[in-house]
């Protein structure tokens, strides 16, 4: 499938989601409550079979938290971006996709560690790099007390 065909296919298959094509990769934004089911379908549908997550990024937008999944289908060699936003910014929570894509388990731990995003049903949600009592440094309102980053 070319990028345009993929966008058309995704629009048909997920009418609830918002699909964009003007960006570098095909982009699909889903509602937080649909995330887990959509992820499962993206992996299991033979025409899509997105089985390889090569990047998972948490972003602190001013009003909420966003999680961006870069996924690739090894069989079809196509790439897409799956996006989701949490409802709340201070106590963000989202369903885990680590049961769909195993590697997401560790990337989610990183997002939890640095941004404080809570992943529901995650089997091993612990801090990855920092101490338990450390703040969440990648949040925009993080106070850098020992001035690691000078502004």
């Amino acid at each position, binding site marked *: 499938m070319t990028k345009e065909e993929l966008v058309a296919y995704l629009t048909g298959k997920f009418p609830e989601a918002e699909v964009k094509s003007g960006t570098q990769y095909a982009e699909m934004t889903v509602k937080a409550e649909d995330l887990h089911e959509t992820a499962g379908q993206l992996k299991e549908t033979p025409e899509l079979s997105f089985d390889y997550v*090569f990047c998972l*990024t948490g972003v602190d937008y001013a009003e909420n938290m966003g999680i961006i999944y870069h996924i690739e289908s090894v069989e079809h060699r196509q790439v897409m*971006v799956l996006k989701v936003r949490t409802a709340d910014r201070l106590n963000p929570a989202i369903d885990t996709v680590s049961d769909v894509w195993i*590697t997401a388990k560790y990337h989610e731990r990183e997002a939890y560690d640095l941004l404080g995003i809570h992943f529901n049903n995650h089997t091993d949600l612990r801090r990855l790099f920092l101490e338990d009592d450390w703040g969440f440094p*990648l949040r925009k309102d993080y106070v850098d007390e020992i001035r690691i980053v000078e502004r």
Partner: protein
Amino acid sequence: MSEIREVIIKTDKLATDKYQVNMGPQHPSTHGVLRLLVTLEGEKVLNVQPHSGYIHSGIEKMCEAITYPQIIHLTDRMDYLSAHMNNEAVALCVENALQVEVPDRVKYIRTIMDELARLASHQLWWCVFGMDLGALTTFFYGLRDREHILDIFEETCGARMTVSYSTPGGLMFDIHPNFQKRVKDFIKYFRTKLPEYDKLLSGNVILRERTEGIGHLSLKDAIDFGVTGPSGRASGFSSDVRKHNPYSAYPFVKFNEILDHRCDTLARYEVRILEMYESLNIIEQLIDNIPEGDYAVKMKGVLKLPEGEFYQRVETARGEFGVFIVSDGKKNPYRVKFRSPGFSNLFALNNMTKGHKIADLIAIMSTLDLIIPDIDR
């Protein structure tokens, strides 16, 4: 008879005793500060729990406060053996976002430097792999040859490891007048030395006994865990970014993606050895054909990326490296994420070592070729 039975029952009891051992953070074979919490039963590994963060330096946070050309210098410090590829990833990402087309000369030089860095990295991997298995001689052979590449880097970039040579828009400076001659001399030299590696280690009975059938990582697991690079390709996972999403001068050269389907430690070893030959082939195709022209295009004094999200994938010596930039139109990024190959590779370790002996854990970890600052960032 009854006495003998009693003894058997006793050894049985001994064997079921589980205990935990901390391997690292200062263990020599972790090649840095990685701590593994290993659950053992006798000598058998039951579970490996990696604890990272000992060298977490907040590079992603720092990037949010600095400009794009400054980020280049931080990427050197992540995977210091693939420093040039990391530089290139950021440079390409910024160039794509600004829709700047660099001259062919830049593309050729970048690709040659990529492959030199890959050779240097694989050489170092080879010498420490031998050393981890107890063969100290490899260390001297590998470092002897790596020195030639580092000298070339030093002459052209001014630094041996943290090269900071690619920059948005091209290169920091042109290649040294000696560059082509020295690279050609090195290729000639290394073509005679690389078969020595095979003679010294590859056919060794002890090496084969310790690697064949050890540390099995199936193709499905490699994809599930996102294990890329030579480690993934040894499981048959065709993940070479140079092939699938070619960048710089890779579209102009012919090379093979080395795939192996044996999935074990020996396969990962042999993929890397064969990749060294491929790197030599790539450099040979390019070194005589570096086009004349500028080594950089004129860029604005302050680079501001348009609002949006930009992703760039490159192939480092360890696997797929990615730079993801979220820009809000200012001179510094809103959010930068580095997808480091070592991060994903590390977490497949538990899956690969289960049921093997603790000595095999060292061998398996060594073939994953982990660089800890690359994982912790």
